[in-house]
């Protein structure tokens, strides 16, 4: 895992946790939408909160696809579920909603799950069925020491064969 990859995982969690509240806040301002007044959808999109919410969800989708290109689904999903914790903190401190004791317990369990999976390997699958370039890219991941940071990203790809 390189620093940039941790940034991508953090992006998935942050964009997921911030996109939905923005959309929800904006849609409450824009009013309800019905099939008979489709032009109201256009006004809804013109609402700045809705527009920013849509941009954040697009950013979420891009970083989610990015993460899935180099990590297992069963790694990405628990690792980014920290977004539920962020969402609860946003609800408590920005929207001043009440967060019950049961909810705090749920948040503690999710955090435990995140910590559990983050200690393991990110990619376990496909080593046998993908082209050599991909499995080598995966193996390259395990080489850099922890804290190698962005420098590890500049390690040239050994296997591509298409470089000039």
């Amino acid at each position, binding site marked *: 895992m390189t620093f940039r990859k941790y940034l991508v995982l953090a992006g998935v969690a942050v964009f997921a946790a911030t996109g939905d509240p923005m959309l929800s806040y904006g849609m409450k301002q824009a009013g309800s939408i019905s099939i008979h007044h489709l032009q109201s959808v256009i006004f809804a999109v013109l609402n700045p909160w809705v527009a920013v919410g849509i941009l954040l969800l697009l950013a979420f989708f891009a970083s989610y696809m990015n993460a899935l290109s180099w990590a297992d689904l069963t790694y990405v999903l*628990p690792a980014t579920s920290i977004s539920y914790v962020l969402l609860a903190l946003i609800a408590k401190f920005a929207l001043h909603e009440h967060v019950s004791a049961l*909810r705090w317990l*749920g948040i503690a369990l*999710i955090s435990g799950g995140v910590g559990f999976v983050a*200690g393991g390997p990110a990619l376990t699958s496909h080593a046998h069925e993908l082209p050599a370039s991909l499995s080598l*890219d995966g193996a390259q991941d395990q080489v850099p020491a922890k804290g190698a940071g962005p420098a590890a990203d500049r390690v040239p790809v050994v296997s591509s064969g298409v470089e000039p």
Partner: protein
Amino acid sequence: MKHAYTWGAILVMASASVVGDILLARAMKQVGDVHALWRRSGLWTVVGRVLANPNFFLGVTAMAFAFFSLLFALSWGDVSLVAPAAASLTFIGNAFAAKVFLHEKVDRRRWIATALVATGVALLAG
């Protein structure tokens, strides 16, 4: 009866999300590590490869289907039941499906993480 409809819609939504996640994960594994690809051939090659992948489109279609089942589920049941129940079932379903269809090694560490997150998400309804 309404109860049965709500749970039916929750199950349909969770299944569609699992199908979508599996297809998207498979599509992105076929595209390959986008960081390496981007360095090699630039951003537009990455975008082009993703958009040209049939699994990507099937996955997005399944996600859209899941979204519409969510709307149906919400019209029959409370959001505090529907959202956590569907998310929780999707987590469990994804762990099984990733093992079977994507051949991921879901070891004990990942099962425990999945179970903890699924339980935690279910508790968020409280």
